[in-house]
């Protein structure tokens, strides 16, 4: 059984590793610096469907397909799948995966869904006889715009703090193989809210959650940022990153040089007009599943802390004047297994 460290963290006692991963991105993601790392780039934003929601369903479906193909599995061979997305009632997951017949648990963590899913999948594998399970999440610029902001053709200016919702999906398959990347430790995030109400500045709303989760992890495990090769946050963007550094510094942790943000990796901000960076569930999921997991598998990256960050608001709560609560869940991925662990 996973060993509970402190109040927030669990160290896995059995071997859990990420055995395969799949990623898909849209045209803009393909034109970004990570374009070549994706399994699939789909230039048609509608993915051959009639609506944006159906298009996003396809993103999830194809990410699962890509991951299963690489794992030499039929999707039906997964013992479970944990999936979520940004659309109301997580419809991209439910409709996108309905044909597979995999035991399904829908989860909602906004843009933190990828790490939330990996935390839960790891604990499920640790605590049961399940052999392998999938985690998948997606976002689509067009379906997110129409749900959270304005119609696509509405003439509005995006403020400099705004972020661009990625049209992308990532799927990771977790199992018991004796092969990196290994999942070593997971930390469940706490909801943090510092009173940010501006929906065009998600990074600022989420940075406190990332800082809190990191602090909890370091405290619970007795480690320091320097013990890791990469600390990878989900979609803080430029504003959120700057604020995270300040919040972490206040707690005595220096992240500069060790930290990257998926929201700042997915696009080229100079060239692609995405303002403060990328966002959306698909941002962290696709960056992790395209360019980070392979580097841990190859040993190029040793110890990685992946913490996807989510903003847990709805348009209704914002219209009622509420602020934006943030959350971040952490997964410690490693190229080496813990010496005492076994399958």
């Amino acid at each position: 059984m996973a060993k509970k460290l402190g109040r927030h963290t669990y160290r896995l006692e059995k071997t859990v590793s990420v055995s395969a991963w799949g990623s898909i991105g849209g045209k803009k993601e393909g034109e970004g610096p990570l374009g070549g790392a994706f399994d699939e780039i789909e230039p048609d934003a509608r993915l051959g469907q009639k609506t944006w929601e159906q298009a996003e369903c396809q993103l999830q479906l194809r990410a699962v397909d890509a991951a299963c193909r690489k794992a030499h599995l039929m999707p039906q061979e997964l013992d479970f799948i944990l999936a979520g997305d940004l659309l109301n009632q997580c419809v991209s997951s439910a409709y996108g995966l309905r044909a597979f017949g995999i035991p399904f648990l829908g989860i909602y963590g906004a843009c933190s869904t990828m790490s939330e899913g990996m935390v839960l999948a790891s604990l499920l594998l640790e605590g049961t006889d399940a052999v392998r399970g999938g985690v998948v999440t997606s976002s689509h610029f067009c379906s997110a715009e129409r749900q959270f902001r304005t119609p696509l053709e509405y003439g509005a200016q995006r403020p400099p703090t705004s972020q661009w919702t990625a049209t992308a999906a990532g799927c990771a398959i977790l199992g018991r193989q004796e092969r990196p990347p290994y999942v070593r430790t997971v930390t469940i995030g706490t909801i943090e809210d510092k009173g940010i109400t501006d929906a065009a500045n998600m990074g600022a709303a989420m940075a406190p959650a990332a800082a809190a989760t990191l602090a909890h992890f370091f405290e619970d495990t007795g480690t320091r940022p320097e013990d890791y090769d990469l600390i990878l946050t989900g979609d803080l963007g430029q504003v959120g990153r700057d604020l995270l550094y300040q919040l972490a510094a206040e707690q005595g942790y220096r992240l500069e040089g060790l930290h990257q943000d998926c929201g700042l990796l997915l696009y080229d901000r100079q060239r692609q007009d995405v303002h403060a960076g990328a966002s959306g569930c698909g941002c962290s999921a696709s960056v992790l599943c395209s360019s980070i997991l392979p580097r841990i598998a190859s040993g190029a990256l040793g110890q990685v802390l992946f913490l996807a960050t989510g903003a847990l608001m709805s348009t209704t709560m914002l219209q009622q004047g509420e602020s934006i609560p943030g959350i971040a869940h952490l997964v410690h991925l490693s190229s080496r297994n813990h010496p005492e662990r076994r399958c």
Partner: protein
Amino acid sequence: MEYLKAFVVGGLFCALGQVLIDYTKLTPARILVSYVVAGVALGALGIYQPLVEFAGAGASVPLAGFGNLLAGGVKEAVAREGFLGIFTGGLTACAGGVAAALCCALVMALVFRPREK
């Protein structure tokens, strides 16, 4: 000269709108509502109509001009019809614009679909 006046006055209305976007928390929808209501008020106070006569389209095209149109319509209707004019004046005055915007939107929505960005 007419064109210059229209350009400068219309431009100033828009520049003010941009100041509101950049320096206040007002959303575009709130700014549009404020312009129309302000237009009704300025029209009612008799300030806006002289501006329309001075700048032509420069004052009538910005949404405040839409408000002024409503105020003018109500004024005429109350003079002509009395109590009922309170309710018919505004919509009657803006009937052309609203019906046109509505029908254009309907046709465009039937013909085109939104594009990816």
